């Protein structure tokens, strides 16, 4: 089937001129700033999303930062990053020479910080778009921006006001109603949403009788969360008019296809990058093969939608 792999149309339009040649992107925090994983075949990628970037450099959390759990991993990196200035001065010029759109994942403690980072990145050659990581706690309220539709809309609107870049808002799944969150950021001007960021979890070292992760809790990623992420995407894609990018536990092209069938316009792969550097290419090729086998012209033909799907009893 590989001989048909190049024929189907794999391009994705995320809006505001952000065109991807492949529906497979690498997720924030799992590919650094693109300089550390030369094994990965960049031609298989539609875009790269950078590590979460803040206004000033951050050194991150004390070790231990990660722990493996059944079919998953917890992380509490603490947004270790060199700050937006370094990104603009050192990384962006190198990205500008690449044949791959780079989306910068933006994080902050306050509304002002998000706005300042977004403003600094706007108009910078090499920066193709922004992804707002709203899973950060708001220093002012203590709550994460991403768990309150009002705050999430505010930060989206504020960033939207200062940039013409394509704007993706990355949803946190740690909420009662992710659809309400998604609607709020769509109304506030997001061009697309990515769903989802990690689920908050914990692991305890029973020998030492303390949490493994120094910060107590961490974000759960990997195959363990795939069914949860898929359901989030299924719900959100049914209600939104902007593209939804599916993220969470994708390891294989079959996993990616589940998200595309659930209504995602594209996918991001995260944890798998740590495990199989060849995953991006395999997933892209697997999607192409599937389209060819099913006689589908492009990935826009994939989403299924059933009216008979009810809530879980």
């Amino acid at each position: 089937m590989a001989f048909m792999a190049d024929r189907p149309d794999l391009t994705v339009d995320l809006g505001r001129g952000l065109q991807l040649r492949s529906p497979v992107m690498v997720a924030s925090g799992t590919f650094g700033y693109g300089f550390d994983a030369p094994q990965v075949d960049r031609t298989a990628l539609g875009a790269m999303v950078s590590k979460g970037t803040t206004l000033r450099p951050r050194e991150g959390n004390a070790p231990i930062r990660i722990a493996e759990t059944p079919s998953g991993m917890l992380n509490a990196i603490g947004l270790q990053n060199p700050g937006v200035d370094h990104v603009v001065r050192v990384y962006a010029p190198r990205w500008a020479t690449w044949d791959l759109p780079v989306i910068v994942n933006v994080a902050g403690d306050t509304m002002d910080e998000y706005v300042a980072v977004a403003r600094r990145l706007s108009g910078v050659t090499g920066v193709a778009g922004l992804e707002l990581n709203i899973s950060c706690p708001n220093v002012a309220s203590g709550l994460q921006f991403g768990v309150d539709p009002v705050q999430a809309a505010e930060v989206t609107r504020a960033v939207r006001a200062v940039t013409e870049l394509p704007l993706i808002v990355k949803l946190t799944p740690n909420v009662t109603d992710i659809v309400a969150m998604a609607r709020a950021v769509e109304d506030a001007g997001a061009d697309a949403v990515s769903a989802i960021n990690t689920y908050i979890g914990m692991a305890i070292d029973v020998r030492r009788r303390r949490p493994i992760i120094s910060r107590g809790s961490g974000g759960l990623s990997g195959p363990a969360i795939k069914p949860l992420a898929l359901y989030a995407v299924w719900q959100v894609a049914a209600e939104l008019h902007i593209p939804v990018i599916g993220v969470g536990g994708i390891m294989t092209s079959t996993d990616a296809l589940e998200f595309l069938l659930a209504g995602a316009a594209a996918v991001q792969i995260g944890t798998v990058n740590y495990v199989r550097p060849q995953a991006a290419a395999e997933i892209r090729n697997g999607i192409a093969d599937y389209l060819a086998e099913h006689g589908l012209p492009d990935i826009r033909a994939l989403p299924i939608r059933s009216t008979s799907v009810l809530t879980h009893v």
Partner: protein
Amino acid sequence: MSIAVERLSPSPSGGRQGWGVVVERSVPMAGAVELVVSQRSAAAAVAPGQFFQLGVSAPHTILRRPYSAAWSDPRGGRIGFIFNVVGAGSAWLAGLHEGDELDLLGPLGRGFDLEGHRPAICVGGGLGIAVFPGVVDALIARGRSVTVLQGARTAAQLLPASRFAGAEVHVATDDGSAGHHGSVVTLFSTPLTGEGEGIDILTCGPTPMLMALIDATRRHEIPLSAIQVALETPMGCGIGTCLGCAAPAAAGGYFLTCQDGPCVRADQIDWNLMTDGFHG
């Protein structure tokens, strides 16, 4: 503050992924397994002290597992790994048979700095000894005088001295069944510390052992800069992308064990923050 931007030195990342074949499986010491893996390009690329991220297909695991190359034979195209079973990943590795394939990513990180002329002392505690066969060979090949200090719970858990040809080997056991009765660090006495030009120390083992060694060397007025440590931290990727392997830097902030290490000069580590480390 030392953050990702300003690494201790430029990143050596970029080990390749490839498949090797298990050509030999043996028990080098009680409770441990040695796998000899044939993979020509990887074997040729290994610097002593570097590690591989080994792919495991164990129930419920997802991450690769970091293992030092115990030794490598570039001409024979073979790499040795020595390990014990502590969980699902190592149990899966221990269950491999000759002829089975093994998914290797590496070699990764920085090995030991082997250059210089001073006598070298290699101090290994428990499975920390696993990294030294290749290191000792390389030091001997450079014409250096080498002493190996090996500690284990009991005699049967010692790697035979024959694995360190050309080196002087001293052992210590917790139960006194071989060599000195007590910690390997107590072997570290004046006669060994050399004179005049001083010595180089290369070490690997549990954090408490490393801390005790640091204390002992301080008493002997050996500078921290003369000590190199092969660190073990949890690892997500092994290639610098997950930032999960942070260790406290003497200069403040953190360095990445997989990029700036695993072999790091002891004066680059903030030992006060290491007490709470991975090994307990």
